[in-house]
């Protein structure tokens, strides 16, 4: 087996296995494995086709359209794009947000974190986690969860729904809302709307706390598997508040190397390009960002819940902070470097989001009427937000006619591009190398990808029944065999 598994020494002698889920708008992913006759793995690559046309598409559009238009980028976390673009446009119009505007934006964002994390953990991942990665495929979906663990399934559905209601109230609609505008927001939260959310919030906090418990239990029950599955060391990047606290809406950038040494801290993100650079590779459409100070070879890093929860100094809400401390202490800290530790960290963030929403709902500023501000017009705007999946960067240049002339986006899936490749290579080494391929073994690869929660149809297709094709090709690239998983979940060769 090759060492790094990124590039095989003699690819011409190997056969190819491709895991190629059918695409949807968010971009799609494909995993290719190169195997030799003895089923030894020589190369593993995750190819992600990203919807890059967007940066071109938005050129020439008026800047105030961007926060709404960018939501078409992604059907999974449109609110994150809505807010990152709005933050960039705040800079363009020279605004300092009013307290009402900032709190309503935060409410919207934490609503999005809640709904996305719930969707991810309960709908997409709990079947793998609760039944086992190579459990019976027909059952390994949310319907199976609902049958075996009805209470867990119900809580997952209702947690997500609550997050969606927070979004609807702050953004105007559950999807493609318009609530956040350059310099502020276009509506406040009325007393009726607040009370509507308040009546369920205690339950939401309690369920979120229980969800952290489920994630912990999974580790306790399968310590070896959870600690070691797809484990690798990585540098980290995330945003923190001025005092080092976890803050998913605003702050400075923090990067640490894999040994915990700080590379930069509280870095003003409006010059992110001085610390982050994007590399391209011939075999993938998606860019590979790296930390400039470490260089393209070793400077790749990991973003998302696991980086945020392990790298912040504390979480500024009571229950989530307690959960963080327990997470760090668990088994000598082993979960903090585990790929499946993502899920535990994600549930801690969901609990934090529920607590933040609870606090905000009691804040009278939500009913304020001072919604928009502006100042001196700027040419360049950068907006960064910690989206559910990780750091999201929006960067625009706007000309004197108010038209966008340049746009650069770095989404969390791009930040994690190399890290996800590392994770699946590790899984291939651990589980696939030298074995006969089965659907259950291939699902191990998907489990690793799903831990990151990338914006891929392959990771998010509902009910764990994404159409999937596995091709076995000979050295000439001709198809020798094909395994197909159809959308009804059946797997045949």
């Amino acid at each position: 087996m090759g060492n790094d598994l990124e590039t095989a020494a003699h690819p011409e002698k190997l056969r190819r296995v491709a895991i190629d889920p059918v695409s949807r708008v968010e971009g799609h992913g494909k995993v290719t494995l190169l195997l030799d006759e003895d089923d030894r793995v020589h190369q593993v690559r995750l190819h992600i086709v990203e919807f890059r046309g967007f940066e071109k598409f938005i050129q020439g559009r008026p800047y105030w359209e961007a926060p709404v238009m960018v939501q078409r980028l992604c059907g999974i976390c449109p609110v994150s794009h809505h807010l990152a673009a709005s933050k960039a446009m705040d800079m363009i119009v020279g605004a300092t947000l009013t307290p009402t505007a900032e709190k309503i934006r935060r409410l919207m964002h934490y609503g999005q974190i809640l709904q996305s994390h719930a969707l991810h953990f309960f709908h997409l991942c709990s079947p793998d986690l609760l039944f086992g990665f190579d459990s019976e495929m027909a059952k390994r979906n949310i319907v199976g969860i609902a049958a075996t663990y009805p209470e867990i399934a119900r809580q997952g559905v209702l947690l997500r729904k609550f997050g969606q209601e927070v979004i609807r109230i702050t953004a105007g609609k559950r999807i493609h809302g318009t609530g956040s505008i350059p310099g502020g927001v276009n509506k406040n939260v009325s007393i009726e709307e607040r009370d509507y959310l308040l009546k369920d919030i205690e339950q939401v906090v309690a369920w979120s706390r229980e969800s952290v418990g489920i994630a912990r239990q999974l580790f306790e029950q399968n310590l070896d598997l959870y600690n070691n599955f797809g484990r690798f060391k990585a540098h980290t990047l995330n945003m923190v508040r001025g005092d080092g606290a976890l803050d998913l809406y605003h702050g400075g950038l923090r990067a640490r190397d894999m040994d915990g040494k700080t590379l930069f801290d509280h870095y003003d993100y409006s010059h992110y390009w001085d610390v982050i650079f994007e590399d391209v590779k011939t075999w993938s459409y998606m860019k590979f960002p790296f930390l400039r100070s470490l260089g393209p070879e070793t400077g790749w890093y990991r973003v998302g819940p696991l980086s945020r929860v392990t790298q912040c100094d504390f979480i500024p809400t009571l229950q989530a902070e307690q959960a963080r401390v327990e997470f760090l202490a668990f088994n000598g800290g082993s979960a903090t470097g585990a790929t499946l530790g993502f899920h535990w960290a994600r549930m801690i963030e969901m609990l934090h989001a529920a607590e933040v929403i609870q606090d905000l709902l009691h804040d009278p500023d939500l009913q304020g009427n001072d919604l928009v501000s502006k100042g001196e017009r700027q040419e360049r705007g950068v907006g960064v937000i910690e989206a559910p999946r990780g750091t999201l960067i929006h960067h625009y240049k706007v000309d004197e006619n108010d038209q966008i002339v340049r746009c650069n986006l770095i989404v969390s899936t791009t930040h994690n591009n190399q890290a996800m490749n590392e994770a699946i290579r590790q899984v291939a080494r651990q589980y696939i190398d030298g074995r006969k391929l089965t659907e259950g073994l291939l699902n191990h690869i998907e489990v690793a990808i799903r831990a990151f929660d990338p914006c891929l149809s392959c990771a998010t297709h509902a009910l764990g029944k994404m159409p999937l094709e596995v091709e076995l090709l000979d050295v000439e690239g001709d198809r020798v065999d094909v395994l197909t998983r159809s959308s009804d979940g059946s797997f045949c060769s």
Partner: protein
Amino acid sequence: MKETFLLDGSTIPFEPGQTVIQAALAAGHYIPHLCYHPEFKPHGSCKLCTVKINGRTVASCTMPAEAGLQVESEIEELNALRRSLVQMLFAEGNHFCPSCEKSGNCLLQALGYDLEVHATGFRHLYPDRPLDASHPDILLDFNRCILCELCVRASSEVDGKNVFALSGRGITKHLIVNAESGKLSDTNISLTDKAMQVCPVGVILPKRVGFSVPIGERRYDQRPISAQALDDAPRQTDAGGNCAACEGTP
């Protein structure tokens, strides 16, 4: 006693000189329309207002009302035709409602909802139409122009300026502005012009307004176009007694 005609079985009184659509709207009966505007001379170009009179299809916005006409409007045959017309307008320009700032205030979108246009219908042409953002306060997004000439009429008839005109024929027909440079900044348009208020879609826009009015508070979020069109119509106050629809309207 006024003269009358029949519209879908209802008796519609009219004044001499009124068109079929004017008399119908005045009497509280909606006929779908796009290029017709109560304050301007009829244009007769969009054909949304097409009705059947004595078996013939005609544009009700240009057809003079006559006593004894038998007019059909609310019939599936005509609504199917209207749906196709709306679909063609959507296919011809670049109309992306979810990210259009006119969404909720757009007549074309409102008609689409009202006529229950649920599918695309035609292959989209995706024309390449760059914006004119040269004016400091006004943006022109030609992607959405439906060539109704309301701005042309408003600018010449009300503003006395002739800022807008249509140029070209057939599929190449397009809106131009009256300046040698071809740029709006070199015309004498101003934010307070009538031409700024009449565009039924999102072409002529005051800059930096965008999405400042939230979803739910936009014009057609409240009531469908079929109900609102009647608000704007000059009312028949003595159409055989009291007209409930006229109460409280000027």
